[in-house]
């Protein structure tokens, strides 16, 4: 099986889907001949032509509005937002239009499109090349939100996202774009949206993470093991639909949970997970659900190591939760 990094896996998924389904169109800034600033669309315009792999003008609202129109008409557009930080000019189209089309038309106008965006910190990008805005979209019914942590998931989840009947935000953790490598099958395989992966079974505490933070949580779990703490680690993979069963089953078993995300703490998805867990596992809980997150500040530049919830801070939270 070929070994790929996340960018290659994304590229592979796009290529397969462009080949398989004439309705698939890729559009965004610099995605054409250049292949995208992270090269995720490299070679696609060369293979599929400038009509299906399109450089757009610099206007995210235009990209998503146009993609919405394509989706309404029956295509399967895959729009790239160059950095998740630049998705906000398209926010109205996403939350007021794309998310509500099926509902507001009584089911007459589904709007299935995929919005890919490199996301998260850890590449020294400062305020505007580091943000993790998933919670903003999770608060909007009608949208699905997917975040892979490695190449295998990236490919299988992206194929599912493109084929999904609903609009999907597909956030790619750019910190591990090249760093996360692994075996990726050739040809197509689908990872269903809404299934978390239990990447490490354990008994004492449930760790919940996604994207780049899964790697940190995994390292923390390994370090915890060395200290004799047995962690169960979930990689959520898809935040909406959320695999609530796997989460509650795990926490009912362990009685403790630590949630990790990069976004600021307040109103991050960790809050929702904590709320859900205490609602559903109240009698099993032996400690509060802990949140290890980015801080309530804009994303910094120089102090990004301090800002990011990495393994050492996660480990500390694990210890505190287990000894609560």
């Amino acid at each position, binding site marked *: 099986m070929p070994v790929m990094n996340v960018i290659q896996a994304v590229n592979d998924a796009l290529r397969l889907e462009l080949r398989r389904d004439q309705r698939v169109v890729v559009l965004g800034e610099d995605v054409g001949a250049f292949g995208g600033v992270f090269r995720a669309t490299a070679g696609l315009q060369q293979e599929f032509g400038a009509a299906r792999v399109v450089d757009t003008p610099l206007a995210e609202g235009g990209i998503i509005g146009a993609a919405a129109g394509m989706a309404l008409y029956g295509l399967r557009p895959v729009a790239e937002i160059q950095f998740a930080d630049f998705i906000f000019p398209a926010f109205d189209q996403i939350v007021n239009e794309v998310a509500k089309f099926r509902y507001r038309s009584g089911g007459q106008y589904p709007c299935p499109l995929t919005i890919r965006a490199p996301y998260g910190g850890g590449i020294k990008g400062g305020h505007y090349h580091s943000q993790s805005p998933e919670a903003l979209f999770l608060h909007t019914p*009608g949208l699905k939100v997917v975040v892979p942590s490695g190449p295998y998931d990236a490919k299988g989840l992206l194929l599912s996202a493109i084929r999904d009947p609903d609009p999907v935000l597909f956030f790619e953790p750019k910190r591990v774009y090249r760093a996360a490598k692994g075996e990726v099958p050739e040809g197509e395989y689908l990872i269903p949206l809404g299934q978390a992966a239990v990447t490490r079974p354990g008994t004492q505490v449930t760790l919940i993470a996604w994207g780049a933070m899964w790697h940190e949580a995994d390292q923390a779990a390994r370090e915890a093991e060395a200290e004799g703490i047995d962690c169960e680690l979930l990689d959520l993979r898809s935040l909406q639909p959320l695999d609530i069963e796997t989460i509650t089953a795990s926490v009912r078993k362990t009685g403790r949970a630590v949630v990790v995300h990069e976004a600021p703490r307040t109103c991050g998805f960790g809050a929702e997970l904590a709320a859900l867990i205490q609602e559903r596992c109240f009698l099993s809980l032996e400690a509060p659900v802990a949140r290890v997150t980015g801080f309530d500040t804009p994303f910094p530049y120089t102090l990004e190591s301090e800002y990011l919830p990495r393994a050492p801070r996660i480990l500390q939270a694990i210890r505190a939760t287990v000894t609560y």
Partner: protein
Amino acid sequence: MKRERAAKAPVRADHGTAREWAAGRFLEEFPLYRVVDEEGRLVGGAQLELPGSELLGLYRWMLLGRSLDERMITLQRQGRIGFYIGAIGEEATVFGTVAALEPQDWIFPSYREHGAAFMRGLPLVTFMANLFGNAGDLVKGRQMPCHESWAPGHFVSISSPVATQVTQAVGAAWAARIQGDDMVPIAFFGDGSTSAHDFHTGLNFAAVMKLPVVFACRNNGWAISTPSASQTVSETMAQKAIGYGMRGERVDGNDLIAVWAATRRARQRAAAGQGPTLLELVTYRMEGHSTSDDPRAYRPAEVVEPWKRKDPIKRVQKLLEARGLLDEAGDAVLREEVRLEIQAALREAEAFPPKPPVESLFEDVYAEPGWAQREQLAELRRAMDADPRVANPRHVEG
């Protein structure tokens, strides 16, 4: 590449190279295109290219639109529906455009183009069920009145945020070209909406991609309480096309035939691969913005007067009469037909159960409801069973 041309362009050293255009320049450059004058006479050497029967059909549509708007405004005043927004005085911009399109062309409406949906087959009764938001509403009582969808007629779901449909229409045009379909969407929007960002990105994308799409700006002089001069100081909306390297045209929006002909031209150009057109349809909002609005607070009655003489329906009536296609008696018959049609539809629409079923609240969020929707439906049902006030709008007001 553009750069090369730029390098060869003329070069001047005097100060103030950019033309200080005189007031009125763009009014001249984008003259108001008109075929029929206010007395129903053909202007200049114009020919009437629309067959008489079609013209009569369109006249009936305009009567229906007007009559419906008036009736529904009354209905709102009676408290039988919560809200209404129509197109009184702007009928030519709605029916003239859509008549010039092909049936496969998608319509991306603003919120006044209900007539377009009717022309595409939306039953009146279904429209009215939307006004009631009752069990007959195809949109399942989810949106305010006048936010209908009609997929069988390629009439796209209406939303309230203005101008969002502009970029969406561009996307549909793009999709059609990719698919090789002869489909030219039209996007409707108002003068106020030219200030919105989707206007800009939509027109620019369409021009850059040379997409087959028609932009129909209903310049009705007002955005709620503000006149168009508060939205833009360009003399015309049509000249905005220049900034996008696009064709623009200014049309008498109260002249059905001019609107029809201009739209047909724009469609032909689009279908022939010559790109998008911005049509400025100059008309007037004769009534309040909607039933929530009272224009007396900001608009002296006098300014409306001159526009009464330009009524788009009267103009067609005169044209039909002059051509011997309609007389007073025939007109009365038409008006009575329309009245009865509306009355019958209203009776039928009001007969639906007043609420869609409660489970409809949780459908269509996603193609399949997720566990949150399923659990919440169960939660709501339990709550309703335990306390009937849950479903009663009136128990806690105030």
